[in-house]
């Protein structure tokens, strides 16, 4: 059994070497196209971290209606805390509001009006769960629906723009990655098909010598997987080098560096190999 496995493995490698030009062209093409997936995914991961940082700094300022007293204000706070998009909310009492007013405008509201007209309010931190992209406008509407809430203020445009681009990027990445992985299947499938045609003589000899269908198919499947592995290695090297290069340039004018995640790369590495295997199976099923 081991001898047979070793023979099939060696046949797979030899097959690759026998069709050098086609195999090299396929490996390089897989390497280049897959590197786009890897770089985009790594960039997406960095963008996701960046968005998390921005989200951590999201604060919504909520003003309650004038007739809201402390008991009702605490009720509103507990209602706010029930919203999954909200990480925490802090009550701003009328006195605290007056202090904030004094800090911002340099004058005490009592000195001007002899009473404190400022309402109760709240400062809300938004949840930073990176799996959920956040629609701040929608959250704002939800908060306004809570009884007693008068106004919600946030850096609406900036936050909305960041979230919109973030969502757009992930849709774009998903579509292009799917197309590239699909192209990998077609590419491997066509390469294996050409290899099968090129080795009609071998297939005939093997059949006449008593080889089972699986014995004939396995080297072709292995060839596709080897092409996927080598293509993935090239893609990983391109992705890693690109991030090293970008970090080198970034280091000239910023302390910020991009992370290159080994785990993410490993997942993509095996994903590409998996799709190469699917491509080989497709060719072998169709043409053998």
């Amino acid at each position, binding site marked *: 059994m081991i001898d*047979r496995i070793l023979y099939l493995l060696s046949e797979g490698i030899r097959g690759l070497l026998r069709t050098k030009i086609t195999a090299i062209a396929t490996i390089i093409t897989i390497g280049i196209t897959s590197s786009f997936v890897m770089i985009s995914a790594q960039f997406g991961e960095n963008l996701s971290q960046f968005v998390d940082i921005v989200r951590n700094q999201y604060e919504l300022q909520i003003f309650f209606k004038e007739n809201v007293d402390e008991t009702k204000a605490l009720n509103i706070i507990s209602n706010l805390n029930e919203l999954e998009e909200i990480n925490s909310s802090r009550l701003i009492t009328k006195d605290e509001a007056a202090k904030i007013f004094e800090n911002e405008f340099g004058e005490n509201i009592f000195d001007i009006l002899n009473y404190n007209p400022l309402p109760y309010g709240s400062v809300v931190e938004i949840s930073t769960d990176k799996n959920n992209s956040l629609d701040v406008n929608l959250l704002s509407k939800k908060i306004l629906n809570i009884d007693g809430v008068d106004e919600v203020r946030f850096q609406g445009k900036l936050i909305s723009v960041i979230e919109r681009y973030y969502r757009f990027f992930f849709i774009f990445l998903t579509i292009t990655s799917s197309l590239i992985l699909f192209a990998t299947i077609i590419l491997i499938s066509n390469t294996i098909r050409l290899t099968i045609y090129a080795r009609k003589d071998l297939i005939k000899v093997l*059949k006449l010598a008593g080889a089972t269908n699986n014995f004939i198919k396995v080297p072709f499947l292995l060839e596709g997987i080897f092409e996927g592995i080598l293509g993935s290695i090239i893609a990983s090297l391109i992705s890693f080098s690109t991030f090293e290069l970008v970090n080198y340039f970034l280091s000239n004018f910023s302390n910020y560096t991009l992370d290159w995640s080994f785990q993410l790369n490993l997942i993509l590495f095996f994903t590409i190999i998996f799709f190469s295997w699917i491509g080989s199976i497709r060719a072998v099923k169709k043409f053998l």
Partner: protein
Amino acid sequence: MIHFKKVLFEFNNGSGIKDTSFNIESGEYVCIIGPTGAGKTTLLKLIYMDIFPQKGEVIVDKYNSKKIKNKEIANLRRNVGMVFQNPQLLNDRSVFENISIPLHIQGLGLKYIKNQVNEVLSKLGIEDKKNHFPNQCSGGEQQIISLARELVKNPIVILADEPTGNLDPASSLKVLRMLEEINNEGTAVLMATHNFTLVEDRGYQFMQIKEGEVTL
């Protein structure tokens, strides 16, 4: 060992094998004689179950054409040697590698394969060609290499379809002698040829085939 029972196999143009019955036992040497297109190759293909009878049955060893499964066809072919007019060698592999293919298929160990192939190479007198590639060998040598590739399996029968068709008289004679030697050691040989003069005086059993009809 090989039994044809009322076998019919017809191609669309009407050629093929018609209502044929015969038996070939272990160790026999049978020569199938007939003109080109008479059905010799069809008959051999029926034996190694590349095609199946439309009527009747072919039994080779324990395999019956009516009951055989795909996987069993592979097993049958591990016990049947096939030599063709074109040696069908792989030009990108050495002579040794060509001959060792059937043993790799059987999943045998490298040491055993090495010994077995060397033994066959020496038996057929082509040890010196071991590391050559087929296109570095003459036509006669290539046919002997193809014979070696079948012999290494220790087959119960060798089916030879016009094995001398592309060879000069001296090489043809050499191949015939080798087939005879193989037969002397107990392996049945079934050889198809249209060249009666080549085989007429060699004391073989003859089976004549003409327009698909077989006469012994």
